[in-house]
């Protein structure tokens, strides 16, 4: 039989993506929490002379899907030629349910006992040979993180055959599994390890909440420390010492003025380039992404990657469950929000794991309004921070209050109630340096490839809009809202227009407007709230549907008007 499509299927958080990455060499994000993969990923493998596609399917516990991510899994199964069923060897019993369901289908199955190395630490002894006999299909022990057993797996791929056992009822399946487990698995008693004690400490409310506060505090401190040092000692010296002389020469060549000069170099301030004011494609256009945002991208994703791989996020979700219920969500919804702090796009994609339409709507609207991405955060810290750290705190606490108030209101207004959390809490695992670095690099390179071009485009666009007097035109139309409601200068409309494209550039555009501190605080807050950037918008339209997205957008705009207006009334400085 010719194999064209191989499917990787298994429970959430069993290491499918790690195996996928080993088999195909493709780079994918791997973490230690259920639901890392929400879209199927495709790569290729070489077997003899063929190159079948391998598809990494989002995790599912059963073949009767309860969320959109699981629906994808079941749909994919129909056109596969071979299923590699990945099992967490430390959770054999529960994982086997899906295995039996797979064996009932007309598709060849190979079972992979992943996390084989962990069974030893956990006092679990599995007889893989006996399991192979009991299931009637090849069973291969592996360790996805180190690559152990992968060669063996590849060797077995061409030999797989469909088993097609008769369909069982739920009860029969579990009874069958019970018999298998009794035959192949032995559990030994062993002492609690340090990590297990830490697991308990970090999840019991009495100790877990202070622990969470400490984790958040440390995370922020490390993110800021790493980023500020990268900016002060690497990025700024690079631009000042190396780039400025080149740009100044180019400026002289271009005649120190005129349209072309203003697009490429920007306006000179006192005859010099000012990277936050000039707004040329090759000055501010490079300085914003590389010297202001990139250092924060690096430090944020470094810290996030370690927390993800360690397995902290699900515990945070359980601790936050109570609070999230007040907002109409359950604890798991905090994970997309945390991802959204990096970039709203992956945050929006992760919302697939939320069960219902109501939940997705609330989560998406809350994230788009009150969860600024790291690029935006970096710019707010860079720009508002110049006026004092307290003002940065003011912007973020305003967003925090908006998140809570809006969540509470949406929860009251929207019909239905929030579903309940039901989530496996994975064990802590010490993050592997190689894995952390690899994931960090993937995220940095996606910022370089997907965000930087838009920043440059945004700045080019700004210059063209100014040159064509489009900005002046919109300034006049919107000046009543800007001036009377928010107390902002007319010129801020340019930032609001560019904010659709890139929020970091938009915040940067507030820089040259000579605003008061109050205006700067209001401007940054409104920019964060009023609308998601175009990339997030596109994903949300796909995930929520155009109708819900329009409703959500209407809410965002009204919240921006109200919050900006309130700040303008209340703030006195």
């Amino acid at each position, binding site marked *: 039989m010719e194999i064209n499509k191989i499917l990787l299927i298994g429970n959430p958080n069993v290491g499918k993506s790690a195996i996928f990455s080993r088999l195909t060499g493709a780079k994918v994000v791997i973490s230690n929490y259920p639901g890392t993969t929400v879209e199927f990923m495709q790569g290729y493998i070489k077997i003899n002379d063929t190159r079948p596609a391998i598809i990494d399917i989002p995790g599912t*516990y*059963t073949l*009767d899907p*309860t969320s959109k991510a699981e629906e994808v899994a079941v749909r994919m199964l129909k056109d596969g030629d071979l299923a590699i069923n990945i099992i967490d060897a*430390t*959770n054999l*019993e*529960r994982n086997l*349910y899906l295995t039996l369901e797979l064996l009932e289908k007309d598709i060849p199955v190979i079972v992979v006992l992943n996390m084989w190395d962990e069974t030893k630490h*956990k006092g*679990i002894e599995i007889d893989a040979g006996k399991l192979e006999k009991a299931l009637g299909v090849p069973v291969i022990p592996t360790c996805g993180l180190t690559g152990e057993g992968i060669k063996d797996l590849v060797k077995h791929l061409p030999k797989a055959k469909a088993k097609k056992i008769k369909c069982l009822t*739920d009860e029969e399946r*579990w009874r069958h599994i*019970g018999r298998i487990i009794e035959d192949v698995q032995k*559990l030994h008693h062993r002492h609690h390890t340090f990590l297990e004690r830490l*697991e*308990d400490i970090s*999840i*019991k*409310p009495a100790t877990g909440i202070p622990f969470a506060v400490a984790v958040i505090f440390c995370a922020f401190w490390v993110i800021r420390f790493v980023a500020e040092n990268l900016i002060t000692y690497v990025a700024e010296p690079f631009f000042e010492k190396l780039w400025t002389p080149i740009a100044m020469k180019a400026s002289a060549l271009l005649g120190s003025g005129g349209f072309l000069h203003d697009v490429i170099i920007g306006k000179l301030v006192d005859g010099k380039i000012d990277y936050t004011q000039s707004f040329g494609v090759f000055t501010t256009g490079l300085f914003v992404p590389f010297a202001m945002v990139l250092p924060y991208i690096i430090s944020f994703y470094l810290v996030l990657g370690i927390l993800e791989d360690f397995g902290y996020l*699900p515990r945070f*979700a*359980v*601790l936050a*469950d*109570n609070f999230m219920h007040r907002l109409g969500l*359950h*604890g798991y919804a905090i994970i997309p929000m945390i991802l959204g702090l990096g970039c709203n796009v992956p945050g929006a994609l992760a919302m697939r794991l939320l069960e219902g339409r109501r939940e997705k709507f609330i989560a998406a609207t809350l994230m788009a309004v009150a969860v600024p991405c790291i690029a935006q955060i970096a710019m707010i810290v860079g720009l508002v921070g110049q006026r004092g750290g307290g003002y940065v705190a003011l912007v973020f606490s305003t967003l925090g209050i908006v998140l809570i108030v809006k969540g509470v209101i949406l929860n009251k207004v929207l019909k239905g109630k929030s*579903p*309940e*959390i*039901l*989530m*496996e*809490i994975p064990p802590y695992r010490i993050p592997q340096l190689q894995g952390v670095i690899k994931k960090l690099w993937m995220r940095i390179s996606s910022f370089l490839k997907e965000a930087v071009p838009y920043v440059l485009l945004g700045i080019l666009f700004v210059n063209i809009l100014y040159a064509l007097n489009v900005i002046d035109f919109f300034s006049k139309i919107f000046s009543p809202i800007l001036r009377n409601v928010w107390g902002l200068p007319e010129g801020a409309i340019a930032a609001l227009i560019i904010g659709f494209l890139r929020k970091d550039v938009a915040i940067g555009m507030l820089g040259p407007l000579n605003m008061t501190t109050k205006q700067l605080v209001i401007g940054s807050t409104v920019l964060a709230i009023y609308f998601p950037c175009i990339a997030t918008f596109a994903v949300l339209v796909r995930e929520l549907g155009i109708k819900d997205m329009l409703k959500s957008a209407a809410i965002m705009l009204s919240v921006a008007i109200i919050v900006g207006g309130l700040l303008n009334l209340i703030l006195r400085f």
Partner: protein
Amino acid sequence: MIISIVGMKPGEVGTVTDIQGGQEVTRRIQGMGIRIGKKIEKQGSHFWRGPQRVLIDSFKVAIGFGMAEKVFIKVERNGNK
């Protein structure tokens, strides 16, 4: 005596005897490994009707309060049958 997961004390071990949810909820709970006949250990609960934590074999699950109320467990307690 038979009580729900919510009624169990931290550290108490019991056997699942019944899951009284709708079909979909029951399937989800079972898919997570909590099913009739399984021994589970209550690990703790979170205040204000928060999630309940249980240990099944060697893995931990957080289950919402309302769902946990639907899962019934037979436990042995002194003085009770």
